């Protein structure tokens, strides 16, 4: 009975196949933040299906956020309803790798002939490398940059070079304060995911979060102390308001803040809001020491399909989305940039010439560093410990004891790190 059924199915499939002239594979793809990326993916999928008529891409309803994205995949791994390709926050990849849900991409990469020529370089792949294996291809990248409201700066009589150090930032703050404008001097995005800017200050001194074997906290050293003290100094000297991030962004967008240190991902929105109200300029993130870097934000595509046919199609889509025209769509439709070298240097050259504010982050690409995800079951809880410590300074409660805050934060993080190297 079963064999007969199989045969019938096979015959029907054969007939159907010959009728369609080729076998069609359907892959399911899911990505976060509909309000940022809907247009991007529409364009990419359209182009992809034209180039690969044998593969159909079915878009699932977008994840609400990075948190929702990893939550959904974890749940779907239990019910075996995973999409073939998923786009996840860079710091959320690790948890899926550790739980064995994401599939290594090495077998596919080894089959690619022109992988490097397609624009994939080491710094980009490093963002998705775990245990020396590549698990994802970064899709859209953001870096910390400085946004300036040039109108506020001019009214404060500040016409010199834009700040290159945090002390110069404080000078501008003082100039804005004495000019008596009804604005906040600056906002420094300590609350972007609660630990991204902490990593930024540490990376700017090339100071990793943990020891090489990931069992010891590393930021309880001189560089860490410098980082925490710099943060406290900025909050105090600049009278930085203790805003929640949405409010901080709304204030800067509306022209009520002089300087804004934040992710490039907000550029599209802020550019639109600033039009006709004030002159917006982005510039390099201040004070990167020699050998220092900046943590990448953004997301990467992971292949979750295990069936070889599905996985193959999934890989084709992922490669398409992260190189060439696909990758260029990221810059054209969002404030993010593609990490792909070829896309940035060749296809997007004109675009960046016309939009210098978008080019700031591209200039910083050589500084690209890992958005470090803490290891083990407590990895995400650790980010909360860091956020709480930073908040106790931003809210002025412990602004006068940054070293003590750092000390306690280090002890708490240490207690949550795995005891043995992973």
């Amino acid at each position, binding site marked *: 009975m079963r064999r007969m059924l199989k045969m019938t199915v096979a015959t029907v499939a054969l007939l159907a196949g010959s009728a369609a002239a080729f076998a069609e594979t359907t892959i399911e793809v899911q990505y976060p933040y509909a309000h940022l990326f809907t247009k991007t993916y529409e364009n990419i999928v359209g182009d992809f299906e034209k180039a690969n008529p044998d593969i159909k891409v079915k878009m699932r309803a977008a994840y609400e956020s990075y*948190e929702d994205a*990893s*939550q959904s*995949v*974890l*749940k779907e*791994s*239990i019910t075996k309803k995973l999409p073939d390709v998923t786009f996840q926050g860079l710091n959320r990849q690790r*948890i*899926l790798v550790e*739980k*064995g*849900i994401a599939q290594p991409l090495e077998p596919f990469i080894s089959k690619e002939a022109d992988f490097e020529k397609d624009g994939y370089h080491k710094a980009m792949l490093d963002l998705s490398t775990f245990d020396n294996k590549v698990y994802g291809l970064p899709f859209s990248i953001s870096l910390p940059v400085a946004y300036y409201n040039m109108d506020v700066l001019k009214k404060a009589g500040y016409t010199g070079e834009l700040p290159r150090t945090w002390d110069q930032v404080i000078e501008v703050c003082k100039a804005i304060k004495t000019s008596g404008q009804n604005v906040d001097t600056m906002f420094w995005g300590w609350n972007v995911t609660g630990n991204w800017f902490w990593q930024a200050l540490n990376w700017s001194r090339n100071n990793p979060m943990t020891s090489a074997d990931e069992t010891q906290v590393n930021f309880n050293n001189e560089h860490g102390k410098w980082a925490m003290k710099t943060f406290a100094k900025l909050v105090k000297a600049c009278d930085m*308001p*203790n*805003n*929640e991030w949405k*409010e901080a962004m*709304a*204030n800067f967008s*509306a022209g*009520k803040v002089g300087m804004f240190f934040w992710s490039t991902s907000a550029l599209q929105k802020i550019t639109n809001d600033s039009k006709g109200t004030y002159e917006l300029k982005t510039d390099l993130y201040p004070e990167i020491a020699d050998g220092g870097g900046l943590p990448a934000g953004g997301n990467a595509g992971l292949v979750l399909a295990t069936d070889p046919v599905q996985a193959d199609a999934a890989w084709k889509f992922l490669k398409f989305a992260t190189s060439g025209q696909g990758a260029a769509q990221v810059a054209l439709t969002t404030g993010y940039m593609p990490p792909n070298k070829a896309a940035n240097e060749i296809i997007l050259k004109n675009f960046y010439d016309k939009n210098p504010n978008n080019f700031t982050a591209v200039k910083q690409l050589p500084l690209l560093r890992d958005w470090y995800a803490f290891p083990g*079951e*407590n990895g*995400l*809880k650790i980010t*909360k410990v860091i956020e*709480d410590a930073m*908040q*106790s300074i931003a*809210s002025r*409660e412990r602004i006068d004891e940054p070293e003590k805050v750092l000390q306690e934060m280090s002890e708490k993080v240490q207690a949550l790190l795995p005891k043995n190297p992973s």
Partner: protein
Amino acid sequence: MADITLSPDRLQRTQTPATRRRASLRNFKAQGLAWMLALPALFLMAMLLLGPLLAVVVLSFTDYSLGNASLDWRGLDNYQAMLGDDIFYKSISNTLVYVGIVVPGSLLLGLGAALLIESLTRGKAFWRAVYFLPVMATLIAMAIVWEFMMSARFGIIPQTLALLGFPAKNWLQETATALPVLCIIGIWQSLGFNMVLFMAGLSGIPRTLYEALELDGGSSAWTRFWTITWPMLAPVTMFVVIITAIRSFQVFDTVHVLTKGGPNNATMVLIYQIYQEGFDFFRSSYAAALTVVFLVFIFILTVIKARTIENKVHYS
């Protein structure tokens, strides 16, 4: 009642062995039928209430984290970790403070509003609607409105205070004021519901009692309230206390939208901590242990309330 009850001797007279057998069979059948009818409900209860509850209790003794393929028994590890978790203590005390403020606050103001509206000769329906509006509105949407109202730069509240010479601050971002502001929003939200309950209670008090009091010489508003209204409202009051307390223990929406438990965990409440541990940090087993503590809390409170308050309430 008496006219439909069979007198015992009449019952005895009609019972022969055969009819008794028939009766017990009928009884058995009726009982079987009752169980059959209750079965779907029992099944659903086991699947939707008891099953998950048991699963949560079991999970709390393991090291399970969402997405893991396997889990290990860890005994009381999670509960031990809880004892050393400052955020846990903070969320317990914050929850108690929230309940301690919102329950009496919304009860007294709800009662006050009900009495005032009841005393009106015209426009009762209008004021009833006004006070009831916050209950009808979705709390999440209203929380967003509150967020705008509290915004330091654009919000109507800080800006109004700034006109009066106070510094324009977003109180939701201040460690000292964030929880009180959430309490005020909580009171604002449940006041209308309590008011409607009290109004229903008020309309159930017979006029004759007031007339009797007047004949006995008690005519001041205070005596009327203290000797008749308040005691007669006792059942309603108990209901209001229970409902408001349970709803306050479950406060989540406003915390999630407005503060995410911050600043400095000043508004971290139990349910939000459970949510964060379970769905933000994926520490499912620890979240399960917190849930068990939460359930124990609710259970104890329910027992205390049932024991102490129910005994003192006059049911008319």
